[in-house]
């Protein structure tokens, strides 16, 4: 019993357990399929958000181009689905049957060579992860090896997002243009538009997401995670200790890219289309705010952030479309000015001390930790304020790493 308790608190897995129960039991029971499908869609942004926690919160590198990787993953999946949907039988009214409809509209008469491999599902699944990771590796290697970071990295990644969007929209015949790839139907003959498929895909998304959080948590608790933190705070010290700082950053960037790509692929499967509107500058910055609202140091918090912001977006942009942008603006500004550590930081600085006080008082039952508890549970002392806690923790880990080397 004590061993389990220790495992839950030390790894911060308690909050993960709560998230799992919420996603696997509460939501499916409480919501109809339409709402659940929406949650599934938002959760795919959760992949991007936890990638950003690793890259930005832990690695200290802000990428404004996560939409690129989300989009590439989504497009790789969509290409396979589109090819399957465009068999000669169902496209026989086209002048060239057997190729996707948008190619036919753009007077293409045969499948481009780089589309060919996407006929096979294993290759498509491989490409979902490999293509974005490779791109991230190339960008990251070129930039970090030359010690470009911070602001410049953010601007370059933003430019990459712009390039990819313009390219996709401009090359209509190869990519479906501004409409994207629509009308995706089946995955190996399995209709992804049925209710049953939507349930299945929801659960697949949730399991993948929980698995990704476990993986990231494992990395955070390992020496690698400590090094990432140390690098974020005193890069030079880590470099002088003999570590190859740039390759660690490249790793964090590739990890974030791969996670975003998985999110993108699940997005395509659940929503049934992919378009450049999920690739560009605006969606990429919105993805950063998911992580910021949840707490840039908290994996579980980031998922809550993605859910909350997207629910807010859906609700407000339907009911008060004029108000939504103001709210979003207020969110951006307040998250930066007032709550730099997001929801998780609020939990750390307000809810947790209160819980401890209640626990200390006699004759009260201990309460389970509230959602978003993950953050810095194992490092920061509960009494320190939300803003101060990550800093104090970091300086400790820096010392450890530089001494141990």
């Amino acid at each position, binding site marked *: 019993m004590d061993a389990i308790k220790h495992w839950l608190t030390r790894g911060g897995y308690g909050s993960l357990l709560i998230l799992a129960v919420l996603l696997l039991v509460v939501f499916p029971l409480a919501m109809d399929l339409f709402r659940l499908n929406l949650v599934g869609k938002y959760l795919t942004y959760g992949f991007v958000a936890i990638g950003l926690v690793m890259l930005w919160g832990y690695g200290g590198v802000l990428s404004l181009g996560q939409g690129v990787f989300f989009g590439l993953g989504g497009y790789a999946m969509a290409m396979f689905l589109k090819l399957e949907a465009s068999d000669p039988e169902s496209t026989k009214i086209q002048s060239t049957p057997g190729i996707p409809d948008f190619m036919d509209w753009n007077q293409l008469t045969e499948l481009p060579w780089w589309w060919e491999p996407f006929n096979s599902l294993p290759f498509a699944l491989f490409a979902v992860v490999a293509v974005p990771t490779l791109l991230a590796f190339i960008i990251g290697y070129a930039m970090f090896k030359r010690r470009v970071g911070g602001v410049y990295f953010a601007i370059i990644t933003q430019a990459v997002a712009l390039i990819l969007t313009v390219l996709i929209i401009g090359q209509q015949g190869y990519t479906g243009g501004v409409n994207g790839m629509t009308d995706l139907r089946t995955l190996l003959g399995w209709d992804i538009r049925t209710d049953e498929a939507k349930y299945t895909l929801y659960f697949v998304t949730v399991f993948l997401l929980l698995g990704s959080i476990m993986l990231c948590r494992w990395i955070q608790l390992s020496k690698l995670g400590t090094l990432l933190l140390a690098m974020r705070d005193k890069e030079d010290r880590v470099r002088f200790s003999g570590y190859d700082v740039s390759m660690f950053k490249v790793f964090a960037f590739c990890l974030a890219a791969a996670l975003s790509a998985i999110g993108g692929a699940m997005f395509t499967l659940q929503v049934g289309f992919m378009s450049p509107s999920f690739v560009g500058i605006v969606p990429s910055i919105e993805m950063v705010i998911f992580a910021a609202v949840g707490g840039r140091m908290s994996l579980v918090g980031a998922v809550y952030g993605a859910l909350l912001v997207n629910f807010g977006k859906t609700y407000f942009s339907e009911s008060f479309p004029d108000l939504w942008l103001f709210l979003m*603006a207020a969110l951006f500004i307040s998250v*930066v000015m007032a709550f730099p550590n997001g929801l998780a930081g609020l939990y750390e600085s307000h809810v947790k001390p209160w819980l401890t006080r209640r626990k200390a008082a006699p004759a009260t039952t201990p309460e389970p930790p509230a959602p978003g508890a993950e953050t810095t549970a194992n490092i920061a002392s509960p009494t320190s304020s939300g803003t101060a806690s990550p800093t104090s923790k970091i300086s400790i880990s820096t010392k450890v790493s530089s001494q141990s080397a």
Partner: protein
Amino acid sequence: MTFDEIFHITLMQGFAGLSLFAVLLLMGLGLAIIFGQMGVINMAHGEFMTIGAYTIFLMSALTEAYAPGLMQAYFPLAIVCAFLAAFAFGWLAEWALIRHLYKRPLDTLLATWGLSLAMQQTFRSVFGPKEVSPTLPDWLMGSWEITEGLDIPINGMFVLGLTLVVTGGVLLAMYKSRWGLRVRATVSNRTMANAIGIDTRKTDRLTFAIGCGIAGVAGAAFTTIGSTGPTSGSLYIVDAFLVVTFGGAASLWGTVVSAFGIAQTQSISEFFLSGSMAKVLTLLLIVGILMMRPQGLFAAKVRR
């Protein structure tokens, strides 16, 4: 096609590049001051440009309604108003938002992005979602026919002239005035500048506001070549950042050269490729060169 025609097309295409150069340079100059000198990532820079553009629109509407006789003369005054409006909003934004965030550059990025969203929605609520254009004075219309088949649009020349004046003014102010001296001192060593009695907070606020004011002038120039909508400014923000980064963040001359290079590359490749591919090619080139040479074209010699 005779040789003459090809020559004329090349000249006109080059001139189209010059108009783009003018807008990019005006956007880039303001940003070079704010981002290059102060290190603030102002994602709302495009919206300050839009403020300038809407000011021109307002002035033109007011003149048309109350003093139709002055239609020929309002434009220069309107440009000054555009500068002042953007300057005032910049001052306000610095006081309310930016000054709290100087030590956290990545956070200014998020905060100013929020600011830009709010400003866009304000424009939409006040001026409506449709694009508007001010009524321009007659002397800005038409084109100057140098020889048969070679037309240079007058508004393009006006924008170019305006850009040259503003650029000259900024360079002069930066390198010859007391303010410029204070800015450069603050940038190179804030603590030291403080110690010798420079009010760095005041300098910061003035510098930020002037950068925004120049964006307002960019907006004024923009109205002569295109119509203004709530999101017009955001179309140029990435280009503006690339202009500044590509030129070398702390160098104003670098900004001028890189704006020229980027505008001409895009405009000339537009002649051979489709518009979107020209854009992709230009951006790829910039990103590629920045990966090879991250400090930009003209790196300031600073000891770190």
